C-alpha cells in the first residue's frame, strides 16, 4: 500500500510538469503586454521636449518588468530560426520584440535589423529633446506619433511611408536639424536591412540554452535560496513554495485575493455537497429497493431530466421569476450575499445570508444530486445481483436489514470516488453560478481575472485545481482500498 502511494506520487511529477508547461505556455501566448497592464495601461508617450519624462517612464517600465521577472529568457532553452539571436529576450517590450521577430522573419540579418532599431530609438530621443515652441509644436507631434508607430511597423510600404512623412515634418522648422540627420541615418540603415537580407537563415533551426535563470524556473521554483543564503528584495519564492505572484489589476498578492474568495466557495460547496449526499443516498437506495415501482420510474425519469438541465438556464429562470417583482414571486434577494452590519445578532445574520444562499445552493446541488442518486441506484442494483445478498434473503433476514446492512455498504464505493472529484471542483468554484448570483468566490474571481487579462490569477487557479484533482484521484484510490478490503494495491 505504502509502495503504491509512493509510486503514484512519483507519477505525479511528469503529469504536473506537463500541466505547468501548458499553463505557462498559455500565459505566454496570451495577448497584451503584462507590464503595461501592471503599470495601469498608461501610455508611455509624452510631448516633444519632455525627454526626461520619457526616460523616466522607460525606466519605470524596465523596473516593473524586472519585478515581474520578464527581463529573463522565457524558458530553459529556445528553438528558433537561425536568424533569431539568443538575446532577443532582452527586448522586454512585447510589441517591440514581436516587430523585431517579424523583421527577422522577412530579412534574416539580425545585425542590420538591430542597427535599424537602435536608430529608431536614437531618433525618438532626438525628437524628445527638441524644445517646444510655436514652430515646432505641430511637426513635433507628427514626428512623435510616427516614431512611436515605427516601433510596431514591419511591412515595407508602411515603414517607407512613415519615414518619408517624418522627413516632410522635419523640414518645417530649423530646430529639427539634428532630427533630420537621425532620419537620414535611419533611412540608410533600413535600406541596409533590405539590401543585405539573408532570409535563408530562417530555414536553419537554432537551439539556444539559457540555464535555470529563466521565467519558467522563476515562476515555478522561485529564485530565492531554498535553504540558506540571504533573500534579496524582489526575489520570488516560486509557485511550489506558495508564492503565486501578484495580480496585475490591483498588485495584491494572488494568494491574498484567493484567501478572500475561498471561504465563500467552500461554504457554498460544503452546503451543496452535504445536501446532495443526504438526499441522493437514501433516494438512490430506495429507488433501487423498489425497482420498477412508480416511485422508481418517476424518480429515475426526473433525475435524468435534472441531469441534463443546463445550470445557467435554471439560474437565469430562478433569478427572473423568484427575485423580481415582475411575476409576483419576489421571494428571494437576487444578487450577492447580503450586507451584515455590526448591530445584527447571529439569527439576523443567518437569515440574511441564508436567504441569499438558497438559490445558488439549489443550482449547485441539483446536478450532483441527480448524478449521485443515479450512481447510487446503479451501485445498489449491482450489489443486489451478488450471491451473498441472495444468501442473506434466503436465511430470512428482513429486507430492510438486507438493504442497509449488506447491500448499502458495498454500494458506497462508487460514491466515494465521486466525492474525490468534487473536492477540486470546490476550489475552482462554480464559474457560472458564482457569476450569475454575483457571489465573490473563486469562480467569479477567476472569471473576472480572465476578462481583465489578469493571468497570474487565472493560471494559479488552473494549476492548483489540477494538483487538487490529482490528489483527489489518489485519495479516491486509497479510500477504495480502505472501504473494500478485497482491493489491494500490494501486487
Amino acid at each position, binding site marked *: 500500500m505504502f509502495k503504491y502511494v509512493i509510486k503514484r506520487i512519483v*507519477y505525479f511529477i*511528469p*503529469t504536473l510538469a*506537463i*500541466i505547468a508547461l*501548458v499553463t505557462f505556455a*498559455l500565459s505566454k*501566448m*496570451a*495577448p497584451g503586454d503584462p507590464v503595461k497592464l501592471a503599470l495601469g495601461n498608461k501610455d508611455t508617450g509624452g510631448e516633444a521636449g519632455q525627454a526626461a519624462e520619457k526616460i523616466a517612464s522607460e525606466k519605470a517600465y524596465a523596473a516593473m518588468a524586472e519585478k515581474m521577472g520578464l527581463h529573463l529568457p522565457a524558458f530553459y532553452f529556445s*528553438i*528558433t*530560426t537561425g536568424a533569431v539571436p539568443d538575446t532577443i529576450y532582452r527586448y522586454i517590450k512585447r510589441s517591440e520584440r514581436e516587430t523585431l521577430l*517579424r523583421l527577422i*522573419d522577412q530579412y534574416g540579418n539580425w545585425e542590420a535589423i538591430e542597427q535599424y532599431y537602435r536608430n529608431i530609438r536614437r531618433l525618438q530621443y532626438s525628437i524628445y529633446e527638441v524644445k517646444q515652441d510655436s514652430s515646432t509644436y505641430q511637426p513635433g507631434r507628427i514626428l512623435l506619433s510616427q516614431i512611436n508607430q515605427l516601433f510596431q511597423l514591419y511591412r515595407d510600404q508602411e515603414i517607407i511611408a512613415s519615414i518619408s512623412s517624418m522627413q516632410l515634418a522635419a523640414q518645417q522648422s530649423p530646430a529639427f536639424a539634428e532630427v533630420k540627420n537621425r532620419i537620414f541615418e535611419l533611412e540608410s540603415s533600413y535600406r541596409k536591412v533590405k539590401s543585405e537580407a539573408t532570409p535563408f537563415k*530562417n*530555414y536553419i*533551426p537554432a537551439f539556444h540554452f539559457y540555464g535555470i535563470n529563466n521565467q519558467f524556473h522563476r515562476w515555478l521554483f522561485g529564485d530565492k535560496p531554498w535553504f540558506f543564503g540571504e533573500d534579496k528584495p524582489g526575489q520570488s519564492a516560486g509557485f511550489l513554495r506558495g508564492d503565486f505572484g501578484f495580480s496585475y489589476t490591483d498588485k495584491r498578492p494572488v494568494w491574498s485575493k484567493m484567501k478572500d474568495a475561498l471561504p465563500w466557495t467552500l461554504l457554498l460547496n460544503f452546503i451543496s455537497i452535504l445536501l446532495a449526499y443526504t438526499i441522493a443516498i437514501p433516494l438512490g437506495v430506495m429507488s433501487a429497493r423498489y425497482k420498477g415501482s412508480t416511485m422508481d420510474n418517476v424518480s429515475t425519469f426526473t433525475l*435524468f*431530466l435534472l*441531469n*441534463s*438541465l*443546463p445550470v*445557467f*438556464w435554471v439560474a*437565469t*429562470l430562478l*433569478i*427572473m*421569476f423568484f*427575485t*423580481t417583482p*415582475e*411575476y409576483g414571486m419576489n421571494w428571494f434577494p437576487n444578487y450577492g450575499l447580503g450586507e451584515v452590519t455590526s448591530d445584527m445578532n447571529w439569527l439576523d445574520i443567518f437569515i440574511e445570508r441564508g436567504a441569499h444562499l438558497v438559490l445558488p445552493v439549489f443550482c449547485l446541488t441539483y446536478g450532483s444530486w441527480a448524478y449521485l442518486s443515479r450512481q447510487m441506484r446503479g451501485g445498489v442494483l449491482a450489489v443486489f445481483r451478488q450471491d451473498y445478498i441472495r444468501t442473506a434473503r434466503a436465511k430470512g433476514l428482513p429486507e430492510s436489514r438486507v438493504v442497509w446492512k449488506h447491500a448499502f455498504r458495498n454500494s458506497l464505493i462508487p460514491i466515494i470516488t465521486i466525492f474525490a472529484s468534487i473536492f*477540486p*471542483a470546490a476550489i*475552482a468554484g462554480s*464559474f*457560472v453560478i458564482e*457569476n*450569475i448570483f454575483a457571489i465573490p468566490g473563486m469562480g467569479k474571481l*477567476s*472569471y473576472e481575472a*480572465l*476578462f481583465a*487579462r489578469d493571468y497570474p490569477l*487565472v*493560471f494559479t*487557479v*488552473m494549476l492548483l*485545481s*489540477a494538483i487538487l*484533482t*490529482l490528489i483527489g*484521484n489518489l485519495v479516491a484510490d486509497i479510500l477504495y482500498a480502505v472501504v473494500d478490503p478485497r482491493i489491494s494495491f500490494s501486487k
Partner: protein
Amino acid sequence: MSKLSQTRQADDQSYWAVVRRQFMKNRMAVWSLRFVYVIIVVGVLADFLANDLPIACGYKGKTYLPVLNSYGVSLGISKWPPELANVDWHQLSYDWALLPPVPYSPQYMDNNNSGFKAPFGKEQVVPSFRFTHFLGTDKLGRDVLSGMIHGTRVAMLVGIISMSIAMVIGILLGSMAGYFGDARMKMSRIRLWLNIVFFFLAIYYAFIVRSYTLSDALSVSVGGFLLQLLISLLIFTAIMALANLLVIPLKRIPFLRTQVNIPMDILISRLIEVKVSVPTLLLILSICAIMSKPSIFITMIVIGFLGWTGIAKYVRAELLRVRSLEYIEAAQALGLSEWRIILRHAIPNSLTSVLITVAFGVAGAILTESTLSFLGIGVAPEQVTWGSLLSSARSDASAWWLAVFPGMAIFITVTVFNLLGEGLTDAMDPRLKQ
C-alpha cells in the same frame, strides 16, 4: 425453408441487427433519434427557414432566388445583380415574393420592435401578421425565433465538428494504448530515433517557420487559416514520411536494427490523466480568451481538441478486450501488419460502443458551447447562439421569452442526446442479448 428466409434469419442474428432491434424497442430513444433528424434538417435549412432574403422573388420584372444567390456570393462564385446589391430587403417593393417562414435574419434589427417585445404581443408594430415576431424580440429588435433557428445550426455544427475532432484523436490514441499495451509496440532503434528527431524538424518547418503565415491567415479568415494549416500539415507529413523512408537503408546496420519497446499504454494513459486533471471549462475559457478575434469555429475546434479523453478511455478498454480475441490472433498469424489489424479488424469491432460516448459527447459539447456563449467568451458579438440569446435575458427581467425558449432548446437537445446515449447503452448491453 427457402434459402432467402435462411439468409434473413442469419442477418437478424448479426450484432448490428440485435443492437438495432433492442434500440427500436426503446421508445424514448427512437423519438430522440427522430428529434436529432429534426435538428439536422433545421440546421441545414436555417437560411431557408429564417432570413431577410426571400427564397424567390420577382423584382422590377425579373425573377431572383436571393437565398441561393447569397450562398453563391459568400462562396465567391457569383455576384449580386446591381439593383440588389446592398439593399434593405425589408424595404424593397417586390412584384411577388416567396418569403421564408420567418422573414427575419437573426442579425436584423427591427427598429419598430426594439426593446423586448413579447411574443404575439399587441405592442408589436408589424406590417402584417406574416411579419409577427412569434417568439418576441430582444433589446435591439432582433427576432428570437430566427435566432433560435440559426442557433440550431450552431449547435449542430458544434456537435459535428467538435465530435469529429474528438473522435479522430480519441480513437487513434485509445486504440494505440489498448492494442499495443505496454509491451507490444516494438520498433527498431533507428526508427525510433529518426522519428523523434524528424518530429521536431517537422514541427519546426511546418509550424515555427510558418508561424507568421499561419497567424496572419487566421486574422483574415478561418477558411484561409484552414488552408494554410493544411499546407503545414502536408509539410509535416512529408518530413515524417522522409524519416521513415530513411529508416529502410539504415536498418541494415545491426546495432540500429535492434528492436526497442515503447510503453504506449503508460504514455497515453499519462496524457489522459494530464488532460483530465485540468479543469476543462477554465482551460477552454483561457484558450478562447487569448484568441484575438473570437470565432465560433475556433471554439468548436478547441472543444473537440479537449474532448477526446472519454472516447480514448472507452476505445482503450474495448481494444484491451478485443486484442486477445481469436480472430485478432488469426490475423496476426496470417502476417497482417499491426496497423492493418488495428484499422481494419480491431477498431470496427469497438465502433459500436464508441457511438455511446459520441452521443454523450455531443450533449456535453453543446452544453459547453452554450455555457461559453452564455458567458460571452469565444463567440463574436454578432453571432447568435442559444447561449447568447439566453444571456441577453439577464438584462431585462420582464423578457421571460428570452430565457425560456433558448434554454428550452438547449435543454431538449442535451436531453435528446443523453437519451440516445442511454438507449444505445441499453441496446448494446450484452446481458440483454439472447
